[in-house]
């Protein structure tokens, strides 16, 4: 059947006395979109940082395409096919939009002219081509979020980690981003997405993993998760459950 691309196996991440992620396990199958949700402070971004190599797990392991990648540095993971975006967007502000994407393109296209050609293609896909020569600092928030996706895509990853790429956008912009995500899924990309906007995450995810206080409290299709008592309690409080 489907092939497992990512296995998160009992990952724990502590910062001093604080356990931000507590014994979380789940898998992601090739070609699927898995949504990672949970209230504020649930550990979603920490888990993202563990998977993308920014933190090494205190316990447990992350296996990507059969290789243990726990604790490997981010630049190594970019090389094996993991692209990520940042919740707090990180544009190279002093460079143009095109240059930002060209830098990511170098990973697969070491020659500058090839990288530039590839960057243009990516910008066409993400709808930023008309802003290519604008300084990245001059983009709107929607533009900067789109630039984040463009940079991750320019790595030509097999697996994409999207950290709140829709939050903060107006409904029109949000719809365009969702459209883009679905297009990427159509191209065979596997996606793990953190998102606060339920309308979005419920619609695009094949499966959801729910975190609360660092622990996984539920996993399943959006419909299953919505009916889960623990999830309702985490989001709406004791009385509602």
């Amino acid at each position, binding site marked *: 059947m489907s092939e497992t691309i990512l296995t998160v196996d009992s990952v724990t991440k502590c910062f001093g006395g604080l356990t931000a992620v507590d014994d979380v396990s789940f898998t992601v199958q090739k070609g699927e979109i898995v949504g990672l949700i949970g209230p504020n*402070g649930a550990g979603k971004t920490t888990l993202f940082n563990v998977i993308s190599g920014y933190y090494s797990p205190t316990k447990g392991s992350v296996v990507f395409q059969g290789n243990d990648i726990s604790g490997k540095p981010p*630049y190594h993971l970019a090389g094996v096919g993991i692209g990520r975006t940042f919740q*707090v967007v990180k544009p190279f502000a*002093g460079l143009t939009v095109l240059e930002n994407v060209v830098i990511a393109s170098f990973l697969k296209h070491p020659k*500058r002219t090839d990288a530039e050609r590839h960057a243009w293609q990516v910008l066409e896909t993400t709808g930023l081509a008309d802003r290519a020569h604008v300084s*990245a600092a001059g983009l709107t928030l929607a533009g900067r979020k789109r630039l984040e996706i463009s940079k991750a895509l320019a790595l030509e990853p097999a697996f994409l980690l999207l950290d709140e790429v829709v939050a903060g956008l107006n409904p029109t912009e949000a719809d365009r981003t969702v459209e883009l995500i679905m297009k990427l899924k159509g191209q065979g990309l596997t996606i793990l997405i953190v998102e606060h906007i339920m309308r979005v995450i419920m619609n695009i995810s094949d499966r959801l993993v729910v975190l609360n206080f660092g622990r996984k409290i539920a996993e399943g299709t959006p419909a299953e998760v919505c009916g889960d008592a623990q999830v309702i309690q985490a989001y709406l409080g004791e009385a509602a459950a």
Partner: protein
Amino acid sequence: MKTTNSRGPAILGILVAALLILPLVVHDTFVLRVLTEGIMWIGLAIAFDVIAGYTGYLNFGHGAFFGIGAYTIAILMMQANLPFWAALPAGGLAAGVVALIAGIPTLRLKGAYFAIATWALSRAIQQLALNVEFTGGPDGMRLNAFLNPQFFYYLMLITVGLTFLILWYLLERAPFGLKLKAIREDEEGAKALGLNPTKLKMQAFILSALPTGILGGIYAYWITFIDPSSTLGDLVSDQAVVMVVFGGMGTLFGPALGALLIFAFKTIFWAYLSDFQLLYLIILGALIAVSVIFIPNGLWGTLFKRKAAPPRREEPALTAVVAPEEGN
């Protein structure tokens, strides 16, 4: 990335031709000497800009690489009796090795901390040269004089010209320059794009040190006398900083322009106002402050390049929305 205008290469060609012919026309030793030193400063400034402008690490110990090059050549020529041509590459190599060793701890630091650490390290190297035997201590070293102004003019011109070409290719044409700029703009973000900041910063630091060491070596042989204050003192680093900041960081033409103007000013100042050397340092300090405040892109950036990122003050609220949630 793009040449600023189509006349650029033509102007550059004329300039190079003029520089090549100059010693055949000008026989005044003083003028030739001033020009030689001016060219040397262009080399020092562009080499400094590799780490400071492109990579964003303000190295206040650049002068140490210059001094190490100078001392390496002096020691090899005077104590090991090596010929100049054999000693010269060793000067660059020594500076490169020191950059590698010094870079391991210092390149972990950022901003002002890197500046302080490199400054302190260069002071330590100066103290070392003052206190050990084989450098001649505070008396410095005297080299066998080779009095041929034309030779040194051309040697300096070729060395700086080659340095410029190599740096221009690596920084403006090859991917390397853009990668360094990515490190400068956001080191964490660069990692996600497959860039290894530690490796790139180290390469930049060594690339900055190599030509600086070679220039120091040429300087030692040319001036025939070096001591810890002239080659390992603050002035080399400080002037390089001012030249680059004033001329325009993160470009090659900016520092070259800055070097020319500052050096011309220095020459005139010291020729006519040599009683007020302290004033020169005060002016340097003031100039760096004024440049940072009024022309953050430097002279070159202000005159020729695209304008700075347009200030987008109209949407601070949106950045505030995403900013506070780090480390969910």
